[in-house]
């Protein structure tokens, strides 16, 4: 019921060989939290297809198995003329939002659009703050459904 879409800078931070600093750590931890949330409920991590093609060049075969097993690779916008990663993510998010609630995880909030209330654009810092609360409450079994808690935190908060 919830789909998290990490954008280019998030994926770069996870796979870069030489980026350090607070911002990079925040982006990596945000991705970790997304995977953590996925392990707890009906949460998908969607990687847009054009972005995945770029990412794939950095990966070994084992890395590819990880991303292909844990994430959904969405090739809907691949091959469309004049579509870059940003445009493709906007299109995929809009389409995905007809079926599920969507969180676009990005530092570049102005690059992405929210054509309807099922899409939220959230920075890694804000996502980390909310996701850590969710994970903490889940540990204490405070909420029955992880999905309801995600909705309450990011969509109705």
């Amino acid at each position, binding site marked *: 019921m919830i789909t998290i879409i990490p954008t*280019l800078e998030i*994926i*770069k931070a*996870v*796979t*870069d*060989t*030489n980026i350090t600093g607070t911002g990079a750590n925040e982006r*990596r*931890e945000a*991705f*970790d939290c997304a*995977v*953590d949330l*996925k*392990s*707890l409920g009906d949460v998908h991590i969607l990687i847009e297809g054009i*972005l995945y093609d*770029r*990412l794939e*060049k*950095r*990966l*070994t*075969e*084992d*890395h590819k*198995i*990880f991303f292909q*097993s*844990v994430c959904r690779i969405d090739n809907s916008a691949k091959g469309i003329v004049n579509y*870059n*990663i*940003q445009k493709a993510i906007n299109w995929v998010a809009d389409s995905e939002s007809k079926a599920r609630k969507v969180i676009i995880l990005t530092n570049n909030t102005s690059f992405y659009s929210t054509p309807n209330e099922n899409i939220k654009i959230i920075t890694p810092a804000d996502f980390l703050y909310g996701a850590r609360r969710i994970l903490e409450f889940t*540990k204490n079994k405070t909420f029955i459904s992880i999905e309801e808690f995600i909705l309450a935190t990011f969509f109705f908060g």
Partner: protein
Amino acid sequence: MTLKNIRLARAETLSPEIRQQFGLPENGLIIIESRNPDLKENFVSIKKGGIRDYLISLGDFKEVPIDE
């Protein structure tokens, strides 16, 4: 042994026998690796270094730019 698939699990929902066998904590994210040709499962606890450290444990990333 070739990695063929990965599943996500929670330590708290695994049996105590599996936790003991693979030295897993009582809580937290666990990656279940399926490998063949022996078709074996391996359970890996994701610790402080997170997914990035797990991926690096599988091999180094290639230094290829992925800018827009």
